[in-house]
């Protein structure tokens, strides 16, 4: 890097090096932050530091005596804020890059442009491989008197004009436009620059039409983006909710949207590849003589049990376009007798693969979105200066509607409050010993209640089964069917009441930070849901599916599917009831009778976990109820509007708003880890180890569900030799565990590399931040020592030597400014300030 010890001798050389833009610049600036040049500077700085310290020590010994390392710093700062500065120090201060740039005078801007233009020009020269020797010299400027200012400005302007004239037309215009001068000034400059070709716009003559085309395309692209973003679901409602209740509540609604998209995907895939073919070629079923009571809609029994909704309806036939529907139902005969070159549609195979592929894609999407949102929350979490950015960069100047302006400022207020509460929360001291006992009690209460709830559900499920067996012997009545709803009802009751208990407990615990309270609440609710679902899964897959005959079931898959359908439905009904009674009536009651002004607060944790619970049910039931995603879609749509209106009418924004940047990450990971993983494990368990019922469904007469693929591959081998390789593929990929292991291994490796890269970036960021901090300290120290040296010189030295010094000083200041401006556009801040400090240290050493 050029900024080094010999900087003072060859400033021009340096400028030249600095202006090698492009690859070199990036490399150089990187080096500047790195060790290579850093070590050199550190060395120099060290020398200077000790030197300066000695001088300071002799001067301010009285202060120093009682000062340790920390208070030394504070003294320096105190020195910095004092008022009586020597003129030299004032000069240095005013020429400091951080101070000079805010008060850019016209002159400064022009010279800055000058340098920029020269850089540009030189860059072009180099690309054209022309020698550099003809480059005009650039002179910096000092802080001169006003009278000198004017004439200097003239010369500067002339220089700039000259420089501009030697640039290409496009660059000229670009530079002119980006100059922060007033338009009148710019016009004057332009007149001077373009005096050789008056009356001819550079744009009209020089700008190629491709760039105009690019601009037009850009406009179209932005227009499309705008339309797309407005097409996004519930955009307006979400904005409104976010503005009023903050990002925490918003993340709940965004989560609903995500789930909805997942279910739409499931529904589309299942509908296209499984339900539609079966619907076109329906099996011949004896028309059942079920009475239509309306209760079937809730229980899923009766005519619904023999519909596309459930597993039992699907056949093990092969659909062939040359077959007639009634033939197709006859079983496998159709597929084999028809033309072997025609592809037949094998329903069991379709069932198996559709479910497998939907799970696979869902898993990939989940993991991908999880990693993405992890990255985002990590960035948000790591970037310091969030508050400043929020204050200065969050206002959207485009917004001009009165309502949206109000909403925007509401939104910003809430976000600022969230940030503040986090800051405050971080400051509060944590954990008193007396609180430990309360926490212990709270945990034992919640764990105990969860355990008893699970146990109760287990016993109740057993009992209900015995009752159902008794019922099955008698005639079917409405009461018996309604009894099927008892178990879902009990489970939903538990789901509804226990979170209330948890809330009570956490109110007792009195957490300081809302984030901790939220996490604890989420964890407890999650534990409850997981244990309930675990018990139910054991009941369905371990008890009913293992010995269906004992339970009097012909088609246990359909039964489990119906159970899941009922659970989903009852869960929704309970949520709706809770919204009406828990929120609406309670609000009326508390405001009307108790005369309290407070409205209930929306419980994010509990609502999100309810969503996750519902989604887990959907995934679990996908195998037994292919149309369950449709039910879930309807449920989510209704839920969104219900919750939205309930929020707007009944609830108030949480009194302790928290920042919810990590909220969506948490939700997605919860959805991924216990929910999706649990569902996939139980579905895989079912496919691999449980014998499907022999009387119904696509997998009848098979030992296990996955045998359908095997059977198909073997059939294919014998009938169609052209496609024999598919058999091999099936054998290698599906049946061989090695492939799965490889896939998982690659997956894990990618995740590992990703985390490593993130970790490295984080380390680099913290190092660079530390470096910037240190630069600031260096600056403070140098200024103080400069002042000290000046004071020392002023008093003991004779006045005759002063003009010489100031002359010297002027020179330094000229060179320093030059360097600074040449560096200004080369990149990040640290090399700039490092260089500036080097220059400053040189000034000091020259002065002494």
């Amino acid at each position, binding site marked *: 890097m050029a900024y080094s010890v010999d900087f003072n001798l060859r400033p021009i050389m340096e400028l030249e090096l600095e202006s090698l833009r492009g690859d070199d610049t990036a490399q150089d600036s990187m080096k500047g932050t790195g060790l290579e040049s850093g070590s050199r500077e550190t060395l120099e700085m060290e020398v200077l530091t000790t030197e300066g310290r000695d001088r300071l020590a002799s001067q301010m010994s009285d202060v120093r005596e009682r000062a340790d390392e920390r208070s030394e710093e504070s003294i320096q700062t105190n020195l910095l804020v004092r008022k009586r500065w020597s003129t030299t120090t004032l000069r240095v201060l005013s020429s400091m890059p951080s101070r000079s740039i805010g008060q850019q005078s016209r002159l400064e801007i022009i010279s800055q442009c000058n340098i920029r233009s020269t850089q540009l020009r030189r860059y072009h020269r180099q690309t054209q491989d022309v020698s550099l020797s003809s480059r005009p010299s650039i002179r910096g400027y000092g802080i001169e008197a006003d009278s000198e200012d004017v004439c200097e400005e003239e010369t500067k302007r002339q220089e700039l004009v000259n420089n501009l004239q030697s640039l290409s037309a496009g660059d000229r215009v670009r530079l002119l*436009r980006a100059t922060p001068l007033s338009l009148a000034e710019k016009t004057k400059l332009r007149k001077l620059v373009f005096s050789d070709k008056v009356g001819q716009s*550079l744009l009209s003559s020089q700008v190629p039409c491709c760039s105009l085309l690019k601009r037009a395309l850009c406009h179209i692209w932005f227009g499309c983006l705008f339309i797309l973003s407005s097409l996004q679901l519930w955009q307006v409602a979400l904005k409104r909710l976010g503005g009023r209740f903050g990002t925490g509540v918003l993340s709940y609604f965004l989560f609903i949207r995500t789930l909805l998209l997942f279910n739409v995907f499931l529904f589309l895939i299942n509908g296209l590849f499984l339900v539609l073919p079966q619907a076109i070629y329906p099996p011949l079923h004896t028309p059942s003589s079920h009475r239509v009571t309306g209760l079937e809609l809730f229980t899923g029994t009766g005519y619904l049990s023999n519909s596309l909704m459930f597993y039992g309806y699907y056949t093990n036939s092969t659909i062939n376009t040359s077959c007639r529907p009634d033939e197709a139902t006859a079983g496998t005969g159709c597929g084999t007798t028809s033309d072997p070159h025609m592809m037949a549609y094998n329903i069991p195979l379709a069932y198996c693969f559709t479910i497998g592929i939907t799970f696979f894609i869902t898993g990939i999407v989940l993991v991908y979105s999880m990693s993405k949102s992890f990255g985002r929350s990590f960035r948000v979490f790591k970037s310091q200066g969030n508050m*400043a950015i929020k204050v*200065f*960069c969050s206002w959207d100047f485009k917004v001009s509607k009165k309502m949206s302006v109000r909403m925007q*400022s509401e939104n910003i*207020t809430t976000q*600022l409050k969230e940030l503040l509460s986090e800051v405050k929360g971080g400051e509060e001291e944590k954990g008193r010993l007396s609180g430990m006992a309360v926490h212990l009690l709270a945990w034992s209460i919640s764990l105990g209640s969860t355990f008893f709830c699970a146990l109760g559900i287990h016993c109740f499920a057993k009992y209900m089964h015995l009752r159902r067996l008794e019922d099955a012997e008698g005639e079917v009545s409405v009461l018996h069917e309604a009894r099927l709803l008892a178990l879902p009802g009990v489970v939903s009751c538990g789901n509804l009441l226990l979170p209330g208990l948890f809330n009570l407990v956490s109110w007792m615990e009195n957490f300081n930070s809302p984030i901790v309270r939220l996490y604890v609440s989420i964890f407890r609710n999650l534990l409850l849901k997981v244990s309930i679902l675990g018990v139910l899964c054991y009941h369905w897959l371990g008890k009913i599916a293992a010995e269906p005959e004992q339970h009097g079931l012909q088609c246990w898959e359909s039964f489990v599917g119906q159970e899941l359908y009922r659970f989903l439905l009852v869960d929704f009904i309970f949520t709706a009831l809770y919204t009406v009674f828990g929120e609406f009536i309670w609000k009326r009651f508390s405001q009307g009778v108790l005369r309290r002004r407070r409205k209930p607060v929306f419980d994010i944790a509990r609502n999100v976990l309810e969503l996750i619970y519902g989604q887990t049910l959907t995934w679990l039931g996908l195998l037994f109820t292919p149309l369950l995603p449709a039910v879930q879609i309807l449920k989510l749509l209704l839920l969104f509007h219900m919750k939205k209106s309930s929020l707007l009418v009944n609830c108030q924004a949480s009194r302790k708003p928290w920042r919810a940047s990590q909220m969506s990450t948490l939700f997605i990971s919860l959805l991924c880890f216990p929910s999706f993983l649990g569902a996939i494990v139980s579905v895989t368990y079912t496919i691999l180890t449980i014998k499907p019922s022999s009387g119904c469904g696509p997998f009848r007469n098979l030992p296990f569900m996955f045998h359908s693929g095997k059977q198909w591959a073997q059939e294919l081998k014998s009938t169609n030799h052209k496609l024999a390789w598919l058999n091999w593929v099936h054998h290698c990929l599906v049946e061989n565990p090695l492939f799965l292991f490889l896939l998982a291994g690659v997956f894990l490796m990618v995740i590992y590399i990703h985390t490593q890269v993130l970790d490295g970036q984080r380390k680099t960021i913290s190092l660079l931040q530390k470096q910037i901090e240190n630069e600031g300290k260096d600056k403070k120290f140098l200024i103080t020592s400069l002042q000290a040296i000046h004071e020392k010189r002023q008093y003991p030295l004779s006045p005759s030597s002063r003009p010489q010094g100031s002359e010297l000083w002027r020179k330094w200041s000229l060179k320093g400014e030059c360097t600074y401006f040449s560096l200004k556009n080369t990149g990040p801040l640290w090399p700039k300030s490092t260089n500036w400090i080097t220059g400053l240290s040189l000034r000091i050493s020259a002065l002494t």
Partner: protein
Amino acid sequence: MGNKQTIFTDEQLDAYQDCTFFTRKEILRLHGRYHELAPHLVPMDYTNEPDVTIPLALIVSMPELNENPFRNRIVESFSEDGAGNLSFNDFVDMFSVLSETAPRELKAIYAFKIYDFNVDNFLCKEDLEKTLNKLTREELSPEEVTLVCEKAIEEADLDGDSKLSFADFENMITRAPDFLSTFHIRI
């Protein structure tokens, strides 16, 4: 209004086109908007560059600026006399900087000016307080405002003088990816 070309000479239009981020058509449209604001003050003929300014009160009544909490500061930062009177050149300049295509450095310089309420070339606590009150419509309590100010300065201040210089500001802006899109007024 019939013969639009007499508003500006070709040369003037070229100059505008080279010095701003607008095309000829847009310049003419801007002139139309400027004229609308004060029809009795602004002449239709600009070929001899008349020295006309429009006061701040009229400029901020534009629908684009009317609801903006920083409207007065925006206009003041672009006016040559600093009091908010805008000549047509200043007017064009303002919307040129606030246009979609203006580069980040240029926008940052003017954003800094806008937020610098007391024009001391630093964003100090006082400026921040004013900015905050405008942003939140004074919904934050005084303690909260002080806390936010302290925190924001602490975060963005690199050299430790407890006020934000332009270098600090610019450095912060580089970390806000949406600044370019939000510091933009469509006209």
